[in-house]
């Protein structure tokens, strides 16, 4: 049988000052880890979760984003003849030619500006995004200079609130509605009707076409058919795949999160190691006694590693609790693919909390390993001589 766990727990209580300091260090590291990863998580999900599985995005061949793409109105006509596209009640193919442009808006309480995406959509385009909900005002009417703005953009930028007037290209648009797109990428956009936006920015072509396949199963066949159509020279992909590709925007934050967590983690490991070394030195004679009584090297080592992991796990739990308040806080960053603002919220998920706890256990394990080895390998006769 192993050395009883109460031996470790009571030792942690006896050395409460060093225990608390180590727990504090690990808690801070884990809190920073959770906060940074929740930032990357939020950004990731705002892009990944955008799109419906049966929707297909069509772009110019080689274009990576809607901003770089154009689809001529003639091509849009051809696309609608391709079999496999779902049809509405009147038998018309469900397809929306859309114009996507960037405008520069000033942030609230700041003099710095940022690019914001403006999307010109048709009625079909709105219908293709059923998760978009109006939370204030009403839907824009076509061709009368009206627009709706996502709540996150309205909150974060000047002149984008309900009742304000936005200068889009050469025309002014009244903000008549505020929408919520459920945490997807559309939460970083301003929408108006496609004709008005084309006119305001003098666009003769669409940026992209969004259409709905008859069902998810035939979606990929439809994608192949569009790409096989030689007259078009277009590229198509599922809407989900398109936004997933955009998630490279979260890469730098995720990378930074992991980098900072590793650097701080190394520091925390040394902190934990220091505590455990002190604890080993403090208990040398006890270790000698336990070995003399017949406890094996392995049980001594396991006991100390477990002690270190308990310490780290407590730190991990506190770290998670410290980071929880950032959950849901809205912020924004530049999407480096589209060079436009992506509004998103810190997102702490159960998975993230679990990985934070695993991370803290790993810190405890590494921090406890060397001191435990030292404790276990000490000659019994030498350990017993320690006062």
């Amino acid at each position, binding site marked *: 049988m192993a050395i*009883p766990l109460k031996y470790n727990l009571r030792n942690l209580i006896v050395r409460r000052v060093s225990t608390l300091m180590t727990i504090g260090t690990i808690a801070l590291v884990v809190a920073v880890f959770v906060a940074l990863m929740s930032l990357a998580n939020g950004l990731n999900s705002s892009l990944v979760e955008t799109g419906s599985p049966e929707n297909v995005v069509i772009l110019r061949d080689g274009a990576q984003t809607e901003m770089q793409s154009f689809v001529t109105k003639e091509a849009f006509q051809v696309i609608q003849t391709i079999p496999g596209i779902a049809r509405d009640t009147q038998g018309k193919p469900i397809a929306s030619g859309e114009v996507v442009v960037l405008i520069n808006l000033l942030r609230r309480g700041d003099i710095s500006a940022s690019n914001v995406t403006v999307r010109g959509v048709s009625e079909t385009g709105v219908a293709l995004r059923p998760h978009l909900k109006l939370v204030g005002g009403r839907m824009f009417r076509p061709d009368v200079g009206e627009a709706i703005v996502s709540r996150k953009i309205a909150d974060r930028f000047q002149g984008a609130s309900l009742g304000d007037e936005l200068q889009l290209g050469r025309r002014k648009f009244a903000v008549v509605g505020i929408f919520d797109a459920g945490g997807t990428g559309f939460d970083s956009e301003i929408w108006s009707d496609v004709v008005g936006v084309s006119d305001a920015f003098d666009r003769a072509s669409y940026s992209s076409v969004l259409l709905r396949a008859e069902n998810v199963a035939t979606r990929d066949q439809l994608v192949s058919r569009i790409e096989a159509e030689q007259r078009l020279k277009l590229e198509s992909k599922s809407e989900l795949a398109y936004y997933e590709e955009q998630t490279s925007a979260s890469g730098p934050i995720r990378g930074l999160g992991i980098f900072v967590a590793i650097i701080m983690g190394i520091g925390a490991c040394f902190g934990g190691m220091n505590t455990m070394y002190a604890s080993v030195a403090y208990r040398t004679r006890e270790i000698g*006694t336990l070995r003399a009584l017949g406890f094996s090297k392995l049980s001594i080592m396991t006991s100390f590693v477990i002690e270190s992991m308990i310490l780290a796990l407590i730190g991990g739990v506190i770290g998670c609790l410290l980071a929880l308040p950032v959950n849901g806080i809205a912020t924004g960053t530049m999407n480096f693919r589209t060079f436009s603002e992506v509004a998103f919220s810190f997102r702490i998920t159960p998975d993230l909390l679990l990985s934070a706890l695993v991370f803290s256990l790993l810190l405890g394990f590494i921090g406890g390993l060397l001191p435990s080895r030292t404790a276990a390998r000490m000659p019994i006769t030498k350990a017993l001589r320690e006062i």
Partner: protein
Amino acid sequence: MADTLINLVRVTKHYRRDTIDIPVLDNIDLEISRGEFLALMGPSGSGKTTLLNLIAGIDKPNSGRVVIDDKDITKLSEQQLAKWRARHVGFIFQLYNLIPVLSAYENVELPLLLTSLSKSKRREHVMTALSVVGLEDRERHYPRQLSGGQEQRVAIARAIVTDPTLLVADEPTGDLDAKSAEEILDLIKRLNEEFHKTIIMVTHDPRAASHAHAIIHLEKGVLSKSGGVYEVPAAHN
């Protein structure tokens, strides 16, 4: 000698400090019978604790054999030796070596955790051991709540709880006042007489040694008399 429990054959032990060899025990031959109560005496650095450690299996000789109950323990691996100690040796230390964060009961229970005994059986054994040392009412006390003499009695209960073949005591009264020391020595003597434990006790103190059946003197790593011929104190003649 009838029924030999411990047999040391040409045991040599030296320590290395930097490049210098420091001899501690030189070709020791020693036989100790089962049920013996033996005191090991000698000046500091004479090698008495080293000899005790070799017999208890917490150190290994450089050469020679240490045979206990017909088993040559020098041939055992470290893991086998740990198991052997848990089963056959009870330790009594000068500074008691109780685990401060465990209660008297939990300290005495420690060696039993290495056996397959059930919790209720362990409790039975622990309470028996504590009653032998007269501390059954102190089972919940922590070492800091006990006097030196009581701590050593808990340590003795821990040493006997597995009913080991051999008890080794290294200066068991070295840290106690005269009255407590006398009580501990009486208790150790009782373990020998009543429970027939074989006991080897290292001590500086001639009064402590006088409780033993026999005394061996070690001087500069050599037994003053070897092969089971002991100098027996006059008081016990």
